[in-house]
């Protein structure tokens, strides 16, 4: 069971404002979905190793050398706001 308060907390963690209606709806819907997906626990025994990636690969590196990248104009081309060669963002730190 997942409560309305649980969903509100998850929405806060995920940075999504939700209306009371959305929270109510999601709480009941997620409970049904979680019931259905919880069956993975039936066969996930401790002797089974987890798989995070279908094709096993170790670190893939490239040679550390300069290469062309996006120009500042290109990088800023989709910015909601910019100033000079910088992204202009809302205040992140407090006044002090």
């Amino acid at each position: 069971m997942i409560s309305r308060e649980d969903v509100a907390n998850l929405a806060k963690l995920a940075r999504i404002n939700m209306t009371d209606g959305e929270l109510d709806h999601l709480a009941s819907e997620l409970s049904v979905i979680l019931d259905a997906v919880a069956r993975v626990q039936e066969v996930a025994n401790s002797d089974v190793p987890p798989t995070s990636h279908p094709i096993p690969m170790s670190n893939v590196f490239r040679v550390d050398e300069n290469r062309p990248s996006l120009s500042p104009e290109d990088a800023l081309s989709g910015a909601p706001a910019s100033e000079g060669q910088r992204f202009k963002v809302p205040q992140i730190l407090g006044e002090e």
Partner: protein
Amino acid sequence: MIVNKSAMEMSQLLNNGEISSVDLTRAHLDRISEVDGQVKAFLFVDHDGALAQAELVDAKRRSGENLSPLAGVPLALKDVMTQRGIPTTCGSKMLEGWRPPYDSTVVTKLRSADVVILGKTNCDEFAMGSSTENSAYFPTRNPWDLTRIPGGSGGGSSASLASYEAPLAIGTDTGGSIRQPAAVTGTVGVKPTYGGVSRYGLVAFSSSLDQAGPCARTVLDVAYLHEAIAGHDPLDSTSINAPVPPIVAAAKDGNVKGMKIGVIKELQGDGYQPGVLKLFNQSLEELAKLGAEIVEVSCKYFDYALAAYYLIAPSECSSNLARFDAMRYGLRIGEGSAEEVMNSTRSAGFGKEVKRRIILGTYALSSGYYDAYYGSAQKVRTLISQDFKDAFEKVDVLVSPTAPTTAFKIGEKSNDPIAMYLNDIATIPTNLAGVCGMSLPSGLAEEDGLPAGFQIMAGAMKDDRLYKVGAALESALTKKWGGGILGKAPKLVAK
């Protein structure tokens, strides 16, 4: 009509100088303006860009340049792939108006093969869905019956093929988004081996499952497109550094004599529409007549695939979609602190299904629940990979129906997430294990006269086997039908 031909037939006409790429492109743009008001496959049509590119290819051809087999042939691109300067929305309000500053590797490869890109096709928002109803813009309609879904998430790509708006299309497949749309529209689609086609420039939904791939109306067309976009890419660290399997050669060969084909016991029976199963069994008979050996195989953990998928995909999605923070690109709504702006932007920019999955993923990854949900799903992933490995020791390919039913009505399942998720029951195991899969038409179901799909699965980097079996079955079935399945679709007329 020129637009009804296959991509390879068009290629031949271009090579023989019987048509120019400009005329061929114009014919498709005309077809789009005639029927897309009803089908609604495209989010953006690059009219001028496509014609300019076609002109360039014609000039190259006139000057005697050695061109690729697909040079001058038009293609529709799913809107989750970036193309420099061309709107890329992923079917979301979050990216409305965004014009990416770079090309995806798939687009770079299409360009070097001189393929003409017609525009961007509709999809479920960020490729999350099985019906294209989750697009923030409008639902796409199935050309077989405009009141029905064209599959999803790549419903725009499949519908553009089935309505002759494009002979080639690019899709992406995280849990079936290439194969299920192909099945319900009577077209062909392949999810390549994970890492076989670069993910660079594919807007990430679930990185360990996402795979771009080719779609068309014939197995041979898909094969040519697959070879054009496949291969190692240093820009994608999960790209496989190995030669591309001989795909086109396999599609031309189409010989299944002596091949062992495994029918997956767990992917039939309850929940599958009887007409779909009947067509599946008839297809098996055709393959047996061609000399293949049909055996039944059990993959006992496949029953848990759907549950594992709906934990892994939302978990990865909750992490990947954190990038939409209203700071560097995309939508920005509201005022106040950065956090307040993020909260209101993500609230306004994401649709219902995307929010549902982000919240589900956030839950599955949160401390205290991680082991029980995400951790357990990762273990099921191991068990499913082991099922495939064991099966491929006994058989060359595995087969099943692609989707349990034919196309359902728009709106029929949109309020029941679980019923919607069940569409992917037969396609998801392939993504979890990273192996490859194809869907091609098996016929029209007797209940409703709508197309159904036959799925073929092969091991990692054994993509050529899909084409061998697919070409054999396609050739036998089209002989029986007296032509391709789309010949039986009702004609769309301009309104």
